Structures are given as structure tokens and as C-alpha cells.
């Protein structure tokens, strides 16, 4: 994934973008310049969050609580109660579960609209190991009321998601807690049309035989798989299901109802994430294409870089194409 440009035939061509993490930092600064109430709360995470330059340029906008994620979220909730627009930033692994009770009680149950940003999510930390991997955040947060759970696929979705979560509230002041997680490696810019909205998945490639439902940074891998399948005569759709909760059930039923096979892809444990959520919706609706979830299995995760880990578990162009082919052949 190095090199400035990656062109892929068949999708109108797409190019390499930045890391979503960098886009996050740029967007935070853009929002902070427009909104004097915006504060970013960090737990010794400004460097990991690519926020060091922002902190240098706008030091008064960064609240530092030290390596104390429970306190991070509690203080963020208090600042929000005090009228501030608050973004709390910490590695997704720690944010989602070290401070899970603070997210549940102080943000969601107390209805304080903090934007919780989980950086270096999934297996982004690669060889740093399972302490640093967040393969449990969707599952943990999906079970909590009053939170939107988002994994943007590319730079555009990241920018739009941060803007949607942390722009000043409208005249009615209505907003709710949002959790956004992304990785730190550069990702390709994907085709995008139409507005971005939480809870509205995006069809980024149409297809009539099969459909991939993917979230976060698995989407571009999935798109490459769909392109590879196209060369073999299989027409596979790709949906970026950036909002894991609330799930775009309507789009899911529509897409799944029109194809013979559906593969759900996520950089998350196979338990409790997008795959389980999709399975439930489709079974309850009586929509029954051949169905697989490609996620990380319930085992000690293999060691290696993010790419090596994802490749190992079949979250790759060839792995996903193979899974889909197998499903279509096996029907």
C-alpha cells in the first residue's frame, strides 16, 4: 500500500488517499476554527491522534487528562454538560472498553452528546498485539442505548462523519453521542455520490449476482475483491455500511434481496459486530441469500502487521473473492 497512486480498472479509477487519522485531525481543526465551543480531550493521545500540530496552533482547545481513559470520558461528559462541544480521543481499544462504563453512564445514559473517537481501530496496531486491537468495540457499544457507532471507509466518509458528529448543533440543539473509529494507514479514495448521513449505507458499486456489505477500512479491500470477481464474470455489489448502529436495515434488505449471495466484512470479532447485526435483520425479514461473515475468528489473533493479519483471515482481495465464489458455487 505504498506509492502515491493506485488505479484500479473497472471502478472509474481510484487513487490513494491519506490515513483517515490525518483527515480526522484536519477536520477537527477546521471545526474548531468555526466553533469556539469545540474542545478536544486527550489521554496522552494527541500524538497518536495526529493532533500535535493542532495542539500547538490552538492549545486552548485541547484538554489533557493523562493516561486515564475513564477520566477522559467522564471529564468529556462534564465539559459537554457545561456547554462545550466535546471530542474525546483515545485508541479505540482503550476507549471502547477501559471507559465503557463511563460511555454507558456518563455519556449515553446521561445523554451528553460527546463525540468519542477511537483511533487506530481494529488491528491497526498490528504487531503491538491484542492489548491494542479493538475487535470488541462494535459488540460492546451496540448493546448500549443512545449511541451511534460509525466506521468510515475512506477520507471522505471520515471527514463527513466527524463533521456530522461534531458540527455545532442546529437551532433545536438536538444531537446524540457518536462513536467513530478508524485506522492509521493510508486508504484509497473510493467512489462517492450523494450526501453522507449516519444510518444510511452507501452503494459504492452496483452488482446483480452477489453483494458485499463491508464497514470501515475493509471496504476498499472488498471493492478490490468485487473488481477481481468482475473479471471472472461475477457481478458483485459493494455497500459501505459505515454506520454499524443504527443499521440501515432498509438498504440491507433491498440489496440482499436482489442477489444470490451476501458476504459481510468487518475488522472486528466475528461475535457481536456488523455480521451478526445483518444476519438478524435478514432472517427476520425472510431474506435468505447464501450468507457468510468474514471477520476475525474467536481465537488468539495471529501476530504480524495489520495487512498480514487481515490477509491471514481472508479480509483481502483474493480471500474475499474466494469466499464469494465459494458461496455462489456452493448454493
Amino acid at each position: 500500500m505504498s506509492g502515491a497512486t493506485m488505479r484500479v480498472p473497472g471502478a472509474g479509477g481510484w487513487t490513494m488517499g491519506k490515513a483517515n487519522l490525518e483527515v480526522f485531525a484536519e477536520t477537527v481543526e477546521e471545526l474548531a476554527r468555526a466553533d469556539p465551543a469545540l474542545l478536544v480531550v486527550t489521554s496522552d493521545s494527541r500524538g497518536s491522534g495526529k493532533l500535535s500540530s493542532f495542539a500547538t496552533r490552538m492549545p486552548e482547545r485541547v484538554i489533557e487528562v493523562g493516561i486515564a481513559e475513564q477520566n477522559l470520558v467522564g471529564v468529556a461528559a462534564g465539559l459537554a454538560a457545561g456547554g462545550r462541544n466535546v471530542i474525546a480521543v483515545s485508541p479505540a481499544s482503550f476507549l471502547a472498553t477501559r471507559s465503557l462504563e463511563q460511555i454507558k453512564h456518563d455519556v449515553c445514559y446521561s445523554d451528553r452528546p460527546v463525540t468519542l473517537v477511537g483511533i487506530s481501530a481494529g488491528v491497526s496496531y498490528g504487531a503491538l498485539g491484542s492489548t491494542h486491537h479493538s475487535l470488541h468495540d462494535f459488540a460492546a457499544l451496540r448493546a448500549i442505548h443512545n449511541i451511534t457507532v460509525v466506521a468510515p471507509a475512506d477520507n471522505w466518509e471520515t471527514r463527513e462523519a466527524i463533521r456530522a458528529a461534531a458540527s455545532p448543533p442546529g437551532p433545536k440543539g438536538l444531537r446524540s453521542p457518536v462513536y467513530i473509529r478508524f485506522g492509521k494507514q493510508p486508504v484509497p479514495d473510493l467512489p462517492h455520490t450523494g450526501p453522507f448521513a449516519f444510518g444510511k449505507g452507501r452503494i459504492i458499486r452496483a452488482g446483480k449476482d452477489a453483494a458485499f456489505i463491508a464497514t470501515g477500512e475493509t471496504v476498499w479491500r472488498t471493492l478490490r475483491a468485487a473488481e477481481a470477481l468482475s473479471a471472472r464474470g461475477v457481478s458483485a455489489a459493494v455497500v459501505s455500511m459505515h454506520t454499524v448502529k443504527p443499521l440501515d436495515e432498509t438498504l440491507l434488505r433491498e440489496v440482499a434481496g436482489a442477489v444470490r449471495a451476501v458476504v459481510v466484512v468487518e475488522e472486528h470479532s466475528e461475535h457481536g459486530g456488523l455480521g451478526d447485526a445483518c444476519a438478524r435483520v435478514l432472517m427476520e425479514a425472510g431474506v435468505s441469500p447464501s450468507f457468510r461473515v468474514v471477520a476475525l475468528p474467536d481465537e488468539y489473533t495471529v501476530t504480524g502487521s495489520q495487512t498480514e493479519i487481515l490477509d491471514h483471515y481472508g479480509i483481502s482481495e483474493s480471500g474475499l473473492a474466494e469466499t464469494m465464489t465459494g458461496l455462489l458455487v456452493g448454493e
Partner: protein
Amino acid sequence: MMQDELVGKSIAYRRDILTYIYESGGGHTGGSLSCVDIINVLYNSIMDITPQNWESLDRDFYIQSKGHSVEALYVVLADQGFLDRSELKTGNKFGTRLIGHPTRKVPGVEHNTGGLGHGLSVAAGLALAAKLDRRASRVFCLLGDGELAEGSNWEAAMTAAYYKLDNLTAIVDRNRLQITGHTADVNKLEPLADKWTAFGWAVHETDGNDVAALAGELRGVPFAAGKPSLLLANTVKGKGVSFIEGEAAWHHKVPTREQLAQAMRELEVQS
């Protein structure tokens, strides 16, 4: 409010607490009786929080981290006009907003608490927002002593000192009991005052069931410029009722009809 009136309020609140717990069939009797003098003094003599200024940020804030002593808060909020007293009859009933821990569904409740070790971080965030926005608001946070075993309190204590939050006052309801028994038999809290001092707080200690002493201390916050204030309020769990005082078993015991009558007679004598 004058001292006599505060004393009278405390007795009335104790009656209401016991009645509430009896009628609702559940509650944290010992803790509510131990901390009610603190809540009384805060609402009647110290804090600028009223139903009229509630929607504004230009007022004081109260976070009850020991959310389980919710009956003490409900009866004070009813007395302050946040709630109609008749609503106290709905406590713990199906569909009520008066449940066993405070929620923002109840007028006058700032933050949902119940899980311990949460309130102080939120209070620090509120105090920091007030500082940043140059509001004169002060934030008061009531902590239990057993609650201090939660490590998140100490994370918050460091942040409050780092940001020099002298608009933040934490009050520890130091009744030396928790559900299992004596706090000293459960964990090593002492030397408690020294711990807070070492964490950068200005610490005072007082009789937490003496409304005059409490009012005197709380009028004096911040205890030191540039530091958050910690009032170690030595209290008696179950204060005011002889057979409840100092009994760990009364942590969340509900009085029988006879016990309620006996308690009311004892409180009558005190008034």
C-alpha cells in the same frame, strides 16, 4: 438560612427519607441519613441552584456521585420546588422517574449516577468548562467513603488539581461504613486526608452532621486559591435514628411499620 432553620430542615428531611423508603419499599437508609445534612446545607445555604435558574449555565452545579443515597436528594429537591411533593409517593413504582439512583429525568438532577467512581470526573469537567468560559459557577460533588476504592476518583483528583479547579469542592460522606461493614475492614482508605492533600487538594475536616459546622466550612470554599477543595465530613451512618445509627445492616434495609413509627418518635423529640 439560619442555623435553627437548617436544623429543622434536617429533621424534616429525615422524616421524609424514612417515609419515602418505607412507602417505596426500597432505599439506602443508612447512607441517606448520613449525608442529608450535607445536601441540606448545600441547597439551603451554599449553592445557587433553583428551579428558576436551572436552564442556565450561570449557576452552581451539584453532582451526587454516591447516587444510591438518592432519597436524600429527592426529598431536598421536592422541598426546593423542583418536584411536587406528591410525586414522592411514586418512588420505585412502575413507570416512575423516581428510581433508586438519580437520573436527569428528575428535575434538578444534574447527572445520572449509580455506578460508583463516576461523579468526580464529570464534576471536574463541569468546573473546567466554567473556568474556560469565565463563569462564576461552582461545582459541588458528594462522594461516599466506600466509593473511594474506585480508582477513577483518583484519576479525577489529579486532573482537578492539574487544572487548578478551585471552583470544585468534593465532600466525602465519611461514615466509615459500607455494605460489608467497616470501611477499614474492606480496604485501606486511611490516611484519607493526607491522600487528598498529596493529590493537590486543599483539605478541611468537619462534623458532617453538624449543619452549622458544615455551613461554616462550605462558605469558606475554596479552601486555598488554585486548588480544588476537599471537605472530609465525618458522619454517622443512619444519623438521627438510634437503632439505625452505625449499623452496617441498615445500608439498604427498609423499616417496618413499627420501626418507622419508632423513628418518627425519635425525630419528634429532636425537633
